[in-house]
């Protein structure tokens, strides 16, 4: 058991030092270097448990290194590098620092060997990332950030509650394979599910990602949800319920993606759908499936970042990411358009692009285990992804009807970040061997077979055909300025309305009680006053003499009573 320099520490150190550096190219260069150093540290970690710290009779493991942690650690480093490069021009210290802390927390969580350490970094990602939303400094972003923070912190609180119950039950805090059954494991599962955007727990994602800053969304897209996928792959591989949860996750977001106007929210829905594929992989739980989940997470982080970068560049130059306001931008932003199309081809799993060599592992694994309905859903979801992410995003941003907007091409640093990401998407798709070598298990899978290439091309080109036919016949729904109700309606509208009306009813009842009591007391007072007050009936009848007489009688009675009592004793 030797001590190693934990990779997350470099991020925290950099976040502390960064505000002291002059705000300019030098500071950006330092920030970009951090993930490179971090990746080198990760690369050189030997497998095993390191940096064990005794803590209140338990043993914390800061570094648990194996192939699963390794691939997630490396892709998180790569994502941090690309998104910080993309944000080179940002001079907002809050965003610079929170991006580093966020990436560092995610990497720390991946190497956490116990539930307490995991909890610490789990909350770290929540707190660091919310500043990327608040940094937009609009009222909408502030409110969204609050909702996001509450949900993310709740996920952490549920995690620590689950960990405590798990400890009481087993006497262990090791973060390893668990079986659903006790309340403790269910709570841990729920906590992972919130961050993984399970159906009905998902709306924080579509709420928060379009609300963050241009560069913040790129950072956000990489870490939180994939950390949750990692946690599920670590804690609950082969848990059957995940197959069905994942299948639903691939399915329903694509419907929303078709009618959503905000292109960054479209991407958030398709991110949710892609997570579904990974969750199915975890649920199937075979070596092929878990390899698929890891490979798909790796490829997905890159192409999703690329898509968010290209739409972000459009937002940066035009001030809007709404499909209804955009169109015709290919004329003046052709490079951004090409990068966007590469990202779109990758998420759609075109042959030679990264999605093709990663998603198919999961589809094959589910088919191999005989889950044919799930396989059919995944196939439908694959076609649907091409439809809304592959065609809709580039089409409505860069082609469609000419919006008349003639923005300049994206800044150099954005183009560079997009260029590197696009290169990686094609490199992984064309030559998957290095990616396969990083996977947790040995890979015995050949993505490029005649059957696979032709069937995939059929699926994709006929989806494109459907788009063309629907577009030409005018059936395709136009992009409209609007929002669509999703499950968040329950806590943004229904619950507040219920609370408001409950408060209304309670205050009405309270007001009624108080009012009635006041009226009764008032009436009684008036009555008493009218009888006993000056000029009242009582004072009219009983003159002063009568009162004196009565008091004398009363005193006489008391005297008599006492006299009788005394004589008796």
């Amino acid at each position: 058991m030797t001590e190693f320099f934990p990779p997350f520490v470099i991020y925290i150190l950099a976040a502390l030092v960064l505000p002291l550096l002059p705000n300019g190219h030098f500071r950006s260069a330092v920030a970009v270097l951090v993930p490179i150093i971090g990746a080198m540290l990760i690369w050189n970690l030997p497998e095993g448990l390191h940096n064990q710290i005794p803590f209140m009779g338990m043993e914390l493991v800061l570094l648990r290194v194996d192939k699963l942690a390794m691939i997630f650690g490396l892709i998180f480093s790569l994502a941090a590098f690309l998104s910080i490069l993309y944000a080179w021009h940002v001079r907002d210290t809050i965003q610079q620092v929170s991006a580093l802390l966020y990436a560092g927390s995610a990497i720390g969580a991946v190497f956490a060997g116990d539930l307490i350490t995991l909890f610490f970094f789990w909350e770290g990602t929540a707190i660091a990332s919310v500043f990327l939303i608040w940094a937009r400094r609009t009222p909408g972003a502030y409110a969204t950030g609050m909702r996001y923070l509450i949900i993310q912190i709740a996920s952490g609180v549920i995690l620590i509650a689950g960990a405590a119950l798990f400890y009481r039950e087993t006497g262990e805090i090791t973060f390893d394979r668990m079986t659903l059954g006790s309340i403790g494991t269910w709570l841990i599962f729920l906590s992972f599910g919130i961050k993984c955007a399970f159906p009905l727990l998902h709306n924080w994602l579509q709420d928060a990602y379009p609300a963050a800053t241009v560069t913040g969304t790129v950072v956000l897209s990489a870490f939180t949800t994939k950390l949750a996928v990692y946690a599920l792959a670590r804690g609950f591989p082969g848990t059957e319920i995940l197959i069905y949860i994942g299948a639903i996750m691939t399915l329903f977001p694509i419907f929303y993606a078709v009618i959503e106007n905000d292109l960054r929210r479209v991407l958030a829905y398709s991110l949710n759908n892609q997570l579904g594929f990974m969750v199915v992989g975890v649920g199937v739980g075979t070596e092929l499936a878990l390899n698929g989940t890891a490979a798909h997470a790796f490829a997905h982080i890159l192409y999703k970042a690329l898509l968010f970068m290209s739409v972000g560049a459009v937002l940066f130059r035009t001030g809007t990411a709404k499909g209804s306001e955009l169109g015709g931008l290919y004329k003046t932003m052709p490079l951004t358009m090409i990068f966007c199309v590469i990202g779109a081809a990758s998420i759609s799993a075109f042959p030679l692009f990264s999605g093709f060599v990663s998603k198919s592992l999961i589809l094959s694994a589910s088919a191999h285990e005989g889950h044919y309905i799930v396989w059919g859903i995944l196939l439908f979801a694959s076609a649907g992804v091409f439809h809304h992410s592959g065609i809709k995003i580039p089409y409505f941003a860069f082609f469609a009807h000419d919006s008349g907007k003639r923005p300049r091409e994206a800044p150099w640093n954005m183009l560079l970040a997009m260029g590197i990401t696009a290169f990686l998407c094609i490199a992984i798709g064309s030559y998957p061997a290095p990616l396969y070598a990083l996977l947790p298990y040995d890979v015995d899978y050949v993505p490029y077979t005649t059957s696979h290439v032709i069937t995939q091309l059929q699926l994709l080109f006929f989806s494109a055909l459907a788009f063309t036919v629907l577009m030409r016949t005018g059936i395709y729904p136009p992009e409209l300025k609007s929002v669509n109700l999703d499950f968040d309606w329950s806590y943004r509208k229904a619950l507040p309305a219920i609370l408001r009306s409950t408060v209304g009813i309670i205050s009405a009842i309270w007001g009624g009680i108080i009012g009635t009591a006041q009226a009764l007391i008032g009436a009684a007072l008036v009555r008493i006053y009218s009888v006993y007050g000056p000029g009242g009936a009582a004072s009219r009848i009983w003159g002063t003499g009568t009162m004196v007489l009565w008091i004398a009688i009363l005193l006489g009675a008391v005297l008599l009573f006492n006299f009788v009592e005394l004589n008796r004793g």
Partner: protein
Amino acid sequence: MAGMTENQNEDTSKFPALGRALLFLDKKENIERVVRGLYILCALLVVADFFYYKKVYFAVERFPGFYALYGFFMCAALVICAKGMRLFLMRSEEYYAPMDVEAEDYPEDGLDRERVDD
């Protein structure tokens, strides 16, 4: 449809070279060519199904053009269902709160900005 310029006399000399090279996408007849190319490609892909041994997991995959039909009809169904969902899910942008979905303030002449917070 794709790329209809309202102002045909627009000065395109300020566009990047790559953007100018792609301006053929603005012409209607070229769009027609792209669409026709798609039709031909689709036809070829279905024909190709008869000329190789398809390695499959499920019997249904053996049906010639299964993936083509599945892709086409499922996508058409997806769009039509989603369009139907609009009837009862669509609300105005201000439904939850005013300015809920707006970007930060952004001046028209800010197209040349280099920083988000300019």
